[in-house]
């Protein structure tokens, strides 16, 4: 039976060593991080504001109901 702390330590070392020993994976991580930045910061903040953002559930229902019956 492994103690919880020892288990967490092993998991931590597993990931740390894995990332340290990466070769071609480093390039991929750079691409992933740039992509996530573009998706979640550039696109999400500046271009994709949900049309019903800021409304509560009832207001959203009202807004869509009005749009569908207009």
């Amino acid at each position: 039976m492994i103690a919880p702390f020892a288990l967490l330590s092993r998991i931590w070392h597993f990931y740390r060593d894995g990332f340290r020993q990466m070769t071609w994976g480093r390039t991929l991580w750079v691409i992933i991080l740039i992509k996530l930045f573009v998706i979640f910061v550039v696109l999400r903040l500046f271009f994709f504001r949900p049309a019903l953002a800021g409304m509560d559930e009832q207001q959203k229902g009202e807004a869509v109901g009005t749009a569908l019956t207009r």
Partner: protein
Amino acid sequence: MNLLTILDPATIDWSRAQFALTACYHWLFVPLTLGLALIMGIMETIYYIKRDDFWKRTAQFWMKLFGINFAIGVATGLILEFEFGTNWSNYSWFVGDIFGAPLAIEGIVAFFMEATFIAVMFFGWNKVSRGFHLASTWLTGIGATLSAWWILVANAWMQHPVGMEFNPETVRNEMVDFLAVAFSPTAVVKFFHTVSCGWMTGAVFVVGVSCWFLLKQRNRQLALASVKVASITGLVATLIVMFTGDQSGISIAREQPMKLAAAEGLRQGGTQAPFSIVPGIEVPGMLSILATHDPNGYVPGIDNLLQGYTTPDGQTFPSAEDKMARGRKALAAFTDFRTNRLSDPARAAEARAELQANVDCFGYGYIQQPADLVPPVWLVYWSFRLMVGLGSLLMLILIAAWWLQHKGRLENARWMHYAALAAIPMVYVAGQAGWVVAEVGRQPWAIQDLLPLNAAVSQMSPTGVALTFFLFVVVFTALLAAEVTIMCKAIKNHQA
């Protein structure tokens, strides 16, 4: 004022173009992930059984290509969810509860499953036991496949909505039967058809890359062994694609007959309906067999569906005008309900009952003329032929690759090497064509019979949507270029 008169048609066109672009790019990455996951799982299983390091190195090579594809493709599907909220806000709210559950399950279970086991798969060689590593490799693939399941459940629901009730109070469809949504026959068939298409993509990719090695006279042992595994996997996948394609045809004939009629360019239907190979060349009775498994089965054409028809066994189906009249009743009742629900509960109850009686035609209330119910026939017709034609050609290429490898003649068959390389773009075109049939073929519906695109779209400026469309073209093309460059480099530099 009518919703349709205040919407700029360009908003719908740009929004659908943007969604189509995003979905098409996303589908460049997904099938290879699904296919390579299966093939590397099989290869590592052989390593586990034989304890031969050659199979470990072979599995590791394909895992590297899997990793490149996974890294570039991951999260591209999230943009579709952004588009739902921004460009298709009416739709998003209207389906919320039905879409929310499958997508939440997909996000939580499958994503974390992939994220956990993919780390063990890449970092765990020589650190965890062989059995645990093998399990992690398979669980990575199973996680990706489960993701596909929930996404396809959501898509299948749009094609054939089941297991829900429309609540006019909240203006949402609410799930009343989770199992009916999660395991609807449409979802099951769509899942196996789509996933087996992914397996076929992976197999064709592995055969193609291996044949490139043979063409360059490099990594001979890896190439021959990979062709053996991939060609058999690809042929099994092709058989599943064909079987589920047949089941899909039956399902479409029953639930989306307009899509089938458009895919065949069939204006006037009937019994012993012919299957069109290309315009002017038909196989008599074949469409009836494909659509109903009966040579005398009745298949309605586009005109029959618009004008209404009666099958030989006496079943009568309403015309488009009849459905539009019921749709307008449903819409009027919905408006009436919303107007009176607080001030006059009795009248609201009557309106609600009227709405429920016609809710199956709700979306027809937004249709202006029957011709709007016909999807672009030429696009669906030719996409279907492209999908089936290329699929058949790919099957022949896989059979030839397996046969030549089996007979020990693959190494010197240069024509086969070129054919296998050409098969890589072909399998992608076939997959994309399949999605065009599925999605363009169901136009004008966002949700079949319940919500057309002109009601589903958000009211926004077309300029903004056009801007993000071109932004996506740039972002996705850059990602694709990165994928192809890194992938080619990894293949070129590989020395087994």
